[in-house]
């Protein structure tokens, strides 16, 4: 698959949140205002792209040659957890501005299933290293897009009259459903038209 096709696939067609339900917890939890949604979105994109590279390398250079692929789950989750820690420390040291913007979201990413999800999807789809990296970035952008759109909707909803029992999470889910319906317009046919 060409890199462009991978990009379109993970940003629109199989958007991690809206089509595959990965990373729903931050999608509902951190989307109350636009600012924190943008922060979370960029933090996830950042970690996802690095995690895609690192897990790919670990899988192909260590687990596969040694026949240890059954340790995949343990290795990946530990890698992602320590990677998040490392990224947090590096960002804190070298870019206080970035740290200020992303800092509080970084620890939350460890248990974000989207990061683990894209690492596993990369291995399952048999991507090479650059394809995995592209998929990681694209999935991150897809996440960013969905969470920012969602937060804009929720800010708008603050001033609307919402039935009492639908307030908060339920109405967020239902708006998410409407967004997912809109994203259903992006399908394989679109991809075929774009890249032939």
């Amino acid at each position: 698959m060409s890199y462009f096709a991978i990009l379109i696939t993970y940003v629109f067609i199989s958007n991690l949140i809206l089509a595959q339900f990965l990373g729903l917890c931050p999608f509902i939890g951190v989307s109350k205002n636009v600012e924190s949604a943008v922060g979370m979105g960029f933090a996830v994109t950042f970690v996802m792209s690095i995690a895609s590279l690192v897990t790919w390398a670990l899988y192909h250079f260590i687990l596969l040659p040694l026949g240890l692929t059954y340790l995949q789950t343990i290795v990946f989750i530990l890698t992602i957890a320590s990677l998040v820690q490392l990224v947090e420390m590096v960002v804190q040291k070298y870019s206080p501005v970035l740290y200020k913007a992303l800092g509080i979201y970084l620890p939350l990413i460890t248990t974000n299933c989207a990061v683990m999800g894209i690492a596993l999807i990369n291995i399952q789809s048999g991507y090479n290293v650059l394809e995995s990296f592209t998929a990681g970035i694209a999935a991150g952008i897809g996440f960013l897009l969905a969470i920012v759109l969602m937060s804009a909707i929720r800010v708008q909803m603050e001033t609307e009259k919402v039935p009492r029992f639908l307030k908060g999470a339920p109405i967020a889910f239902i708006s998410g459903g409407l967004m997912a319906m809109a994203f259903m317009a992006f399908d394989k046919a679109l991809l075929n038209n774009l890249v032939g």
Partner: protein
Amino acid sequence: MRELTKGFIKENPIFILMLGLCPALAVSTQVVNALGMSAGVIFVLLGSNIMVSLLKNFIPDEIHIPVYIVIIATFVTLVDLLMQAYAPALSRSLGVFVQLIVVNCIILGRAEAFASKNGVKDSIMDALSMGLGFFFGLTLIALIREVLGAGTITLFPMGNFNGVIEVPGLVQAPVRIISLSAGALFVVGYLKAMFNWISSRPGKEEI
């Protein structure tokens, strides 16, 4: 007994605590997937709660989260390998979501919030309660989605019974959107609203 029943409605992990939503939505297209997923989650939850409460005095405080994650990941690997060996069809239809039990917030959440502070017996009860609550919530979502979205109820095939119950009327003209991703979000939204309504009724606090 109270420990055991709290997971169903009052502290239902999916609808009240809002934990473990990703697998709940992704695998709820068929009832059989929901049952398989719940079995996996209950097993991991039990195993990790028991291990964490047994080891709680030996785990250094500074690294307790990584230790919990390793314990959980070990049980998830067990489930994954067992499922591949004994239920390959189920394993295929659940896909990456079996491995993603490792990042299911219910499990880490219970290890952190309950098992690390309580004895083994209470932790087992807590795991069963949360696991059954997850099972209840997930099966409810799957039942609604499959009946409305496909007009069928898929269970395990047994003897002459091929495992699929068809709902007359709906199977010819199902509401396809419900079984797609958008429908999952609608169903969860409305169920959550229903749970809000149930738990806010006066005098019904003690369910």
